[in-house]
């Protein structure tokens, strides 16, 4: 099996689906001739032409607004927002239009648009090239939110997204776009949306550690350190954030009784809060300790102090110790 990084896996998924389905078009800033600032669409312009791989004017509201119209008429647009931080000019089109179109039309107008965008920090991007806005979209009924953490999942999930009929925000972890490599089948496969991955699950796991996107690698690193310290940690990579895999979470937490949630976004009103609320509503009697969060701080994403801002394995291990010692 070929080894790919996340960029290559995403490109490969787009290419396969564009070959399989004439209706799939890619649009966004610099996605055409240049192949995207992260090169995720490189080669597509040459293979599929400028009608299906569209360099748009500089306007996110236009990218999403026109993508919606394309989807209504019968295409399968996969717009790219160059950085997750620049999705906000399109926010109205996403939360008031894309998310509500099927519902408000009584089911007449489904809107199968898959929005790809790189998210997260760790690339010295400061305020506007680092944000993790998932919570805003998870709180928006009508949208699905998908956040892969590795090349295999990225390809399988993106293919699945392009083949279902609901709008999706597909968040790609830019920090590990190239650093994360793995074996990826050349051919076609899909991963079911809404299913988490349980990493080194074990009967005797003492703590459940929940993460997604770029934080899964930190979770893995934490689990390794924990093992060295004689603590067995079971990691859940959510992969899909809306709808999220409550069953896998509950199975694990009921077993361990201890849980830590890890995310990059600011803590207050982040997705971690929802996970905690949902778990305690359903399994508080199993909890041996509060569910703790390791997250970004409630500040804009800083530049010079990025390293201090980002959650890391030490902090996560600290929280794991805390729930164990509680």
């Amino acid at each position: 099996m070929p080894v790919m990084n996340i960029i290559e896996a995403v490109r490969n998924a787009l290419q396969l689906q564009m070959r399989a389905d004439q209706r799939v078009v890619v649009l966004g800033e610099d996605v055409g001739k240049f192949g995207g600032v992260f090169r995720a669409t490189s080669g597509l312009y040459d293979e599929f032409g400028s009608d299906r791989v569209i360099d748009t004017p500089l306007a996110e509201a236009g990218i999403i607004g026109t993508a919606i119209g394309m989807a209504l008429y019968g295409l399968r647009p996969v717009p790219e927002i160059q950085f997750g931080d620049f999705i906000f000019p399109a926010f109205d089109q996403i939360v008031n239009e894309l998310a509500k179109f099927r519902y408000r039309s009584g089911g007449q107008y489904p809107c199968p648009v898959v929005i790809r965008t790189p998210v997260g920090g760790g690339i010295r991007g400061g305020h506007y090239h680092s944000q993790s806005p998932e919570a805003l979209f998870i709180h928006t009924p009508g949208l699905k939110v998908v956040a892969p953490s590795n090349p295999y999942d990225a390809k399988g999930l993106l293919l699945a997204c392009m083949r279902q009929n609901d709008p999706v925000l597909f968040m790609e972890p830019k920090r590990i776009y190239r650093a994360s490599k793995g074996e990826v089948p050349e051919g076609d496969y899909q991963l079911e949306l809404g299913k988490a991955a349980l990493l080194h699950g074990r009967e005797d796991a003492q703590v459940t550690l929940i993460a997604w996107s770029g934080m899964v690698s930190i979770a893995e690193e934490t689990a390794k350190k924990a093992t060295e310290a004689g603590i067995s940690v079971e990691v859940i990579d959510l992969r899909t954030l809306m709808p999220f895999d409550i069953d896998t979470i509950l199975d694990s937490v009921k077993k361990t009784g201890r849980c830590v949630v890890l995310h990059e976004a600011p803590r207050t009103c982040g997705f971690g809060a929802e996970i905690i609320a949902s778990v305690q509503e359903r399994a508080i009697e199993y909890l041996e300790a509060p569910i703790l969060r390791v997250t970004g701080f409630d500040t804009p994403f800083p530049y010079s102090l990025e390293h201090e801002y980002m959650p890391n394995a030490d902090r996560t291990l600290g929280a794991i110790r805390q729930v164990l010692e509680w």
Partner: protein
Amino acid sequence: MVAVPAQDDLRRVLDDDGKPLPGAKVPAIPDATLQRIFDTMMLVRIMDDRMMRLQRQGRLGFYMKAIGEEASHFAVAPLRDSDWIFPSYREQGAWFWRGYSVQQFIDQLFGNVDDPIKGRQMPVHHSANWINLVSISSPVGTQIPQAVGAAYAAKVMGKDDVSMVYFGEGTSSTGEFHVGMNFAGVWKAPCVFICRNNGWAISVPKEKQTAAKTFAAKAVGYGMPGVRVDGNDLLAMWQVASEAIERARAGEGPTLIEALTYRVQGHSSSDDPSVYRDPKEPEIWEKKDPINRLRAYMRHRGLWNEGWEKELSEKYNQQITDALAAADHKGPPSVETMFDDVYEELPWNLREQREWLLQQARTKNPHHHG
């Protein structure tokens, strides 16, 4: 059509009394078509009148009239059925023209079990995919880039469908207008933009929306033709719309049409214009009433007579009365439908919430579980 419309060149065919202007080229509209247009304009006028009275009686929650703007709705008349329409909330004529029924219209207003959108949105937010009329949204302007996307899709899918999008002059101030127009220009999208300039955005007069000489002039910034037309002159509307539609279908790109008209009454049933505008202003415009002008023209042409109009008015009043009576017996959609169509299939959180709601509807001791 010129790229920069001379500011005062307003396209007109009929004078205010419905007589063709000297030297005006009268568009060749088949008599039957003209009569169907008049017929539909009558329906719009009667519907608006009846629904407002109903609203005043407290029997209808909310309504928006198009009184005095009806001719502008018929830019859709020269379209083919396969062409797409992205309306705003004030083009009732477009719906009836395409065959949306009085009953469907009224069922939507009441959001009852037969409402084509299942009672999901406020009155006047219709949707009818079977006739290519796209779901109306409240946030103004969002439909503009969407219409451009649909036009682009038709083009790349090798169809020669056109999309037509309606919006008010106030909406030309939104970012959505700009990005939609700009994408259309760059893509040479087969799209026709109809700016219904009715002079007012709720309480804000057009002078406070823009310093541009005209709304049509905004086309210059997008490299497309901008045309200004008398929006109360049905023949001129038809003519200008036909030209723009042909242009689009021929692959020559988009056109912006400013239809100059006037919002004779309040913005909606919730509005009271006396607070912010001079009551004399509407009076001037009532003299330019589009229905009176078309009627006069058709009379000259022998295409109208009193009896026929009386029939129409009786027919539509009866249809409305019947539709209201029928609507009275229709309840709201059932509770469980609230959770449908958020997604193609219910995810676990909605399944759970749905079950909970149904169960608590059954028991007399409702309680919420996580």
